[in-house]
């Protein structure tokens, strides 16, 4: 089981705790990781405004993986959505594929995209490729006594068509199950499907922070001890911006935000320091105390 690890733009700079914990759990679970130097931005930031650039940027990353003969494992949900969508689109649309390859100076016929390689979000790799059974067998410390709110975000499951309806985005379960396998309780809460707002942060901060606030308030109301995220943008909204949101809305949430590999790493018995828990903006001490 070997993947080209697609870090995207945000994780390696703004969410090193996510990347660090991912690499640690991959080591423990026996997931092979290869870092391809050709990987750059996936193209998502330009999708909304220049589709052709979006296709070209995504395609050149996919080509790098195909040339290396590796499937891609993605940390960021927006990157995952982009690469999954373009991988499939170029496999199915011959005319566009020819045009894209020509613009990238590549020959048509050499690349099959989705016919040759798969792109998966890390969470899906864990849930589908590694599997709950294997993970459960490797758990060293059950994280009983803590309850967590799973935040799926948007692009991990939506639009569901590009993911072949892998999971119902209205009623998802993979992350809940992955939380459950660690021994922690995954709580249900009202705003479970809500978007974090990161997509509109650069355009309108007020809207973005208000969207994140709704989720934080809902999680707090559910009584969960913290939030589990699987995307560096969602992490930035709930962890990095939590203090700002508290000040703006005159509220106190104090909700630790864990990247799923950090949570799993704790259950796999990996040293806390190696999981980058000290890099989380909202202190996770309350969670760790409960686990002690």
């Amino acid at each position, binding site marked *: 089981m070997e993947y080209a690890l697609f870090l995207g733009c945000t994780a390696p*700079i703004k969410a*090193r705790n996510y990347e660090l914990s991912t690499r640690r759990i991959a080591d423990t679970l026996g997931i092979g990781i290869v870092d391809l130097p050709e990987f750059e931005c996936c193209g998502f930031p330009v999708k909304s405004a220049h589709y052709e650039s979006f296709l*070209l940027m995504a395609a050149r990353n996919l080509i790098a993986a195909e040339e290396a003969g590796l499937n891609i494992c993605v940390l960021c949900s*927006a990157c995952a959505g982009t690469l999954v969508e373009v991988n499939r689109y170029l496999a199915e649309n011959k005319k566009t594929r020819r045009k894209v390859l020509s613009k*990238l100076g590549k020959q048509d016929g050499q690349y099959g995209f989705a016919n040759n390689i798969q792109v998966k979000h890390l969470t899906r790799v864990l849930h589908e490729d590694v599997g709950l059974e294997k993970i459960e067998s490797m758990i060293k410390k059950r994280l009983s006594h803590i309850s967590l709110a799973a935040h799926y975000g948007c692009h991990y499951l939506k639009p569901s068509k590009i993911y072949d309806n892998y999971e119902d*985005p209205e009623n998802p379960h993979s992350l809940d199950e992955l939380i459950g396998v660690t021994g922690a309780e995954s709580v249900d809460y009202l705003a479970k499907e809500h978007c974090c707002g990161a*997509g*509109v942060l650069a355009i309108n901060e007020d809207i973005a922070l208000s969207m994140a606030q*709704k989720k934080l308030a809902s999680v707090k109301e559910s009584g969960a001890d913290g939030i589990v995220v699987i995307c560096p943008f969602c992490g930035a909204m709930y962890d990095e911006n939590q203090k700002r949101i508290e000040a703006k809305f005159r509220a106190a949430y104090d909700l630790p935000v864990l990247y799923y590999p950090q949570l799993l790493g704790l259950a796999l018995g990996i040293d806390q320091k190696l999981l980058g828990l000290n890099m989380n903006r909202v202190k996770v001490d309350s969670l760790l105390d409960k686990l002690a």
Partner: protein
Amino acid sequence: MSKILVVDDEQVMLDGCKAILTKTGYEVDTVLSTEEALRKTEVTKYDAIVTDLKLPGMTGMEFLEILKDREPEIDVIMITGYATVESAVEAMKLGAFDYLSKPFTPDELRGVVGRAIERRRLLREERSKATKNRVAFEYNMPVDLYYLPEHSWVRRITEGTVDIGIDDVFQKTIGVVTNINLPSRNTIIEQGNPCAEITGVAGRVYKFLAPVSGQIVEVNEGLKKERSLLNTDPYGKGWIARIRASNLKGELANLLSGDAMIQWWLRREIVERKTDRYVQISTLDPNFKHEIAQEPGGENIKVCFGCGICTATCPVREIDSAYNPRKIIRMVLLGMKERVLKSDFIWLCSTCYACAERCPQNVNFTNIINAIKNIAVKEGIIHPAFSAQVDLLAKHGRLYEVDEYDNWRREKLGLPTLWIGEGSAGKVFEASGLKNILPTGR
């Protein structure tokens, strides 16, 4: 201080008007010809212009048309001599604010200029407020009446009998009514000539001009007891008098009604820059929806049946109603291309795809809004946040610049270092054509 320009070919008239208006508190310029007036208006911004209708060379009417063409918002008050009531009414149809019949009293001049200045003040006040209050100076004119625009109305009661009253603009520009001098029964009145006097606060007197000629058969006694009816119900209980009209058919032709009134009203709204409240057919582009359908992701735009699930589902809409997917689709289907592309709201999508998942018609609004933004960018309409992101990507291949310090920190954590440099995004943008579209030509 409000600035007034008075135009007349008689110096004595100019001196008189200047004395009255200066004493009232206005700054007044006077000129003897329309040619001179046009030169003056090029360098000075006036709040109102008072001009004689009959002037040598260019007529007052031609002068009005040139002025309105050049500065649609300017309020022009026409001064008419004998037997020119019809022309004066015609001038009001063309956009003159009001008119004064010679000879007029200082109070009449002050009254009509005061109304023009007040109207301008109300509009200015309205524009200075947040957009929420944009409709503060909305006209509210029943469609079944005949109007002397911005002044009075006529309602047909029986074959030869009509009621008359003041219209919306008159009501709004006189403020609170403190006194009304109504005509007596049986008085004969003439279209365009004063038939009642209304006093506002500060004692300013406004002449009410009869919109039709005839004999007064009844006056609204209720108004004497309750003057506020003029302000609160100008088209109903605030009527002024009932007239047995002497030349109704001929005189109603001088007034505006039905479609003509609506046209006048819309023209006025456009002049007052309230166009975003209306869909102007001339500005629509029926091909807009087809253009979107040609864009990747825009294919299903035409199958939307407006159920509104996208809007009900949208988390951005929940926070800010400026972003309303259903409304945007309606605007697109109507062909409101320019307004949609230039709006800020098209950039507010969070790309959560909730709308796409729930749409019963598989429209996929997230992709539609992307298609719209793609068209906007091609037309050079680019949000600065997007330009900034493209700039970063072109320079660094990522949304963040990576330097030696970042790599030092990563190494300390046991993470592999990241490449530092330009990356290939710049070349990609060159190949895709994006580089040429961006304003800086990146």
